[in-house]
């Protein structure tokens, strides 16, 4: 960096001045968090935003693509980049049809805008392993349209037919050796009509799709230049202040009183804002605001009638509920026939609350200008977040510009229908009227109150004398993730939250007498999707119980599954590939055992074989051989990375992850008491691609569900004991 422009001697703390706390009026939006919005609301909004936010100027005019006179190709990425590689894979789709020089391709994250709505969900968002899936036709079409226009422009200039021209690597080639670069005709092309119909290439002609392609965003991520939301400074946004927020120690706590006397003498603090459920301290720097926040003495209260969630009590209540009948989500044949099984097993499983614990703690930057506002945030939910911000600021959505920042992970936490930390940032910004960057500390993030819910499953299953499954009666108990949110109407049908039962109710196993029931207790802990959502727990129960039944039937676990999957060739094929590549059936290295699991989620199938040992009571996963059928592979390097990533994330939870509540207080705060997987615990992960179909299916999440059951099945092979509680203990 250029130190010459910096007055080094001027690094000083700002003077001490105690601001008078301002008690803000509670906005209605505070009370309405999580409720009120319905998904359909976003549809008319699209039209409103379309008028308010014209697509970025582009040549040819398109919200997704800009071709510079220098031939540079800039793709607007409508999804959040938070590790999964969309800044590379989405431009690959455009570039394939455009026929440009890949080295000229750049990508930028698109702001919130109507043009960037998810093609399946109708609002701009990132989730459900669907970024490539929903962009597959859309972005190839964008590329093909632009190519057609560029060729037409060159043909016009040469006075030849477009059909006599072709495109190679960013150059249009015409009859008689004529050549023009994209940049040379970009401006003329922009004036041509956008063709309504274009023909997309067959897969056999792909040159970029399917090719291992290194990440476009990597260079700036190895030299410190990449700017995450947390990295915005006064250089980017003049007069930017930092806000830290004191929250109630217990879920649902409200501010009763506070004492800011101890702020006296602390330097660099400019504002203190009291609200219904937080106190914000705003200062010139993180450290000033942090010291100020930590000096606040606050008293909090909870509604005496409100439940004080307690993990141990919830587990016991869930367990009792699991023994009673639930609401039937799926029924095949007569599940009561399980009572006639020659060998039957009754098992109860429990799963804790989980925090997302992304590396970059939550943050949101807001500049409020009275009649408009601008936000900078690593959002998975640009449209809902924009709407929520507008409501909090008392502005129309089109008056709020939301810039998407790259995010240091998210795993679902940045896709909150309640837009919690964003609304909070807007409430503070509206009060202080200076641009602020709200930073949640790691502790704020860990205790921040949106978790993968805890669940209990109860399964009674058995095999007959011939070793066939006689019946399977499955009951899941756990809070609904989506109830009370804008997604309720979309994902809850007949009282069944699909995210609670996915992975069980739709099992591919051919089980003649089967039932999946659900009990949904009242929501007492704010909860959220967490990488692979319902599959985080359902795959564990399905795949460990299937393994248990295989042993009860004295069958090989792969052969036992194979017999139940004859109607599901993709699952079968992926399972077989993982088995083959792992050396299934051959002895494992001394002291180790293998366990296998296969699970379908987000349109893809992933099978994994984990090689495990136990030393001094510690589970060590040495190696994982994974096979994935994720349809047509866009970038093999990304698929490999995402499967490794998904396994690390799932293994972290399986071995370590647990958020516990005691009387409404989250007991964990940082990585010492919420440990996560470290490098020395990471298995070698080998990824095999199973030949797929003619279009891509999900990649970011399908690798997570199988790892915990694969490890648990290996633990059984080593110890003879079944793991029925996560995180695992031996």
């Amino acid at each position, binding site marked *: *960096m250029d130190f010459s422009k*910096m007055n*080094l*001697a001027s*690094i*000083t*703390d700002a003077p001490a001045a105690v601001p008078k706390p301002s008690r803000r009026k509670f906005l209605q939006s505070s009370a309405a968090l999580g409720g009120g919005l319905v998904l359909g609301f976003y549809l008319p909004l699209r039209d409103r935003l379309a008028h308010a936010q014209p697509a970025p100027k582009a040549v040819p005019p398109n919200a997704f693509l800009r071709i510079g006179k220098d031939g540079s190709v800039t793709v607007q990425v409508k999804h959040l*980049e938070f*590790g*999964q590689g969309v800044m590379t894979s989405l431009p690959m789709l455009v570039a394939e049809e455009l026929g440009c020089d890949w080295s000229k391709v750049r990508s930028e994250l698109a702001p919130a805008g109507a043009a960037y709505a998810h093609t399946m969900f109708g609002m701009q968002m990132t989730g459900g392993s669907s970024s490539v899936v929903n962009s597959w036709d859309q972005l190839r079409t964008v590329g093909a349209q632009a190519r057609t226009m560029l060729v037409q422009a060159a043909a016009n200039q040469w006075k030849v037919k477009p059909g006599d021209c072709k495109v190679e690597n960013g150059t249009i080639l015409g009859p008689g050796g004529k050549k023009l670069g994209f940049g040379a005709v970009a401006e003329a092309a922009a004036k041509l009509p956008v063709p309504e119909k274009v023909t997309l290439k067959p897969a056999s002609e792909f040159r970029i799709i399917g090719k*291992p392609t*290194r*990440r476009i*965003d*990597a*260079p700036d*991520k*190895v*030299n*410190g*230049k990449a700017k*995450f939301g*947390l*990295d915005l*400074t*006064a250089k980017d946004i003049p007069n930017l202040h930092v806000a830290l927020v004191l929250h109630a120690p217990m879920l649902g706590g409200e501010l009763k009183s506070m004492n800011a006397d101890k702020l006296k003498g602390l330097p660099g603090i400019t504002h203190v804002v009291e609200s219904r459920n937080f106190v914000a301290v705003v200062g010139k*720097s*993180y*450290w000033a605001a942090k*010291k100020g926040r930590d000096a606040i003495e606050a008293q909090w209260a909870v509604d005496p009638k409100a439940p004080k969630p307690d993990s141990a009590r919830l587990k016991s209540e869930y367990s009792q509920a699991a023994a009673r009948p639930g609401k039937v989500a799926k029924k095949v044949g007569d599940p009561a026939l399980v009572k006639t099984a020659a060998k039957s097993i009754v098992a109860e499983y429990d799963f804790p609350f989980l925090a997302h614990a*992304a*590396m*970059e*703690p939550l943050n949101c930057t807001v500049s409020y200008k009275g009649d408009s506002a601008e936000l900078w945030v690593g959002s998975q939910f640009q449209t809902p977040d924009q709407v929520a911000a507008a409501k909090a600021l008392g502005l129309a959505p089109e008056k709020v510009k939301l810039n998407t920042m*790259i995010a*240091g992970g998210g795993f679902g936490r940045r896709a909150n229908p309640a837009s919690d930390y964003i609304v909070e940032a807007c409430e503070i910004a509206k009060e202080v009227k200076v641009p602020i960057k709200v930073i949640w500390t*790691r502790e704020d993030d860990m205790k921040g109150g949106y978790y993968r819910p805890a669940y209990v499953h109860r399964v009674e299953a058995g095999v007959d004398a011939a070793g066939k499954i006689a019946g399977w009666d499955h009951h899941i108990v756990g809070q609904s993730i989506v109830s009370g949110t804008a997604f309720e109407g979309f994902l809850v049908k007949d009282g069944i939250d699909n995210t609670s039962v996915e992975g069980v109710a739709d099992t591919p196993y051919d089980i003649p007498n089967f039932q999946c029931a659900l009990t949904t207790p009242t929501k007492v802990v704010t909860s959220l999707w967490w990488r692979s959502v319902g599959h985080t727990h359902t795959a564990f129960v399905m795949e460990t119980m299937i393994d248990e039944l295989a042993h009860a039937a004295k069958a090989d676990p792969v052969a036992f599954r194979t017999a139940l999957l004859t109607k599901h060739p993709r699952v079968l094929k992926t399972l077989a*590939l993982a088995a083959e*590549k792992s050396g299934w059936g051959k002895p494992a290295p001394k002291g180790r055992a293998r366990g296998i699991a296969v699970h379908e989620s987000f349109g893809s199938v992933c099978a994994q074989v984990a090689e495990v040992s136990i030393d001094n009571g510690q589970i060590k996963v040495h190696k994982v051989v994974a*096979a994935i059928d994720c349809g047509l592979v866009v970038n093999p*390097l990304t698929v*490999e990375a995402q499967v490794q*990533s*998904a396994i*690390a*994330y799932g293994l972290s939870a399986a071995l370590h992850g647990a958020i516990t509540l005691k009387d409404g207080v989250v007991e964990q705060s*940082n*990585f*010492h008491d919420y440990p*996560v*997987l*470290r*490098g020395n615990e*990471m298995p070698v*992960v*080998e*990824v095999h*691609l*199973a*030949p797929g179909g003619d279009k891509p299916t999900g990649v970011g999440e399908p690798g997570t569900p199988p790892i915990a059951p694969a490890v648990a099945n290996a633990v059984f092979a080593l110890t003879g004991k079944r793991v029925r509680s996560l995180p695992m203990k031996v």
Partner: protein
Amino acid sequence: MIRFKVNGEPIQASIDPETPLLWVLRDNLQLTGTKYGCGMALCGACTVHLDGQPIRACATPVSACAGKNVSTIEKIGASAVGKRVQQAWLDADVVQCGYCQSGQIMSAVALLNTNKNPSDADIDAAMSGNICRCGTYNRVKQAIKMAAAPAAAAPAKSAAKKGA
């Protein structure tokens, strides 16, 4: 007044001596490549070198830097080892979200500065203080080996294998 250097440039700071180095780098010097992850020296995202030693800037008061030089990710490419490590990171396509990678790279450079040919166990020992929630650990290890012996390890074209 605390006098120290950042990437070789002299700094004079009249600030609360307890201010963690991390926030001096990020807020005062606007060197935001060094990341905040935990504030308790648990995750390694803020790793910088203090006179060549890897330290966690979030738990190091600026006063501890007096008379010393702090090296950060922004200038680590100026050293031969730093440049090699950054290149290996690109060749192995290590990064995902990238948030922890400044710290990973600073720890990797510190390791290779003292151990030219680290074993798997050496890498585990030196790198286990750096958490990556994206789980890039396999490729981190691969990149460190590539940086240690650029000729010996070929870059991953695609480590993912085609199935049957």
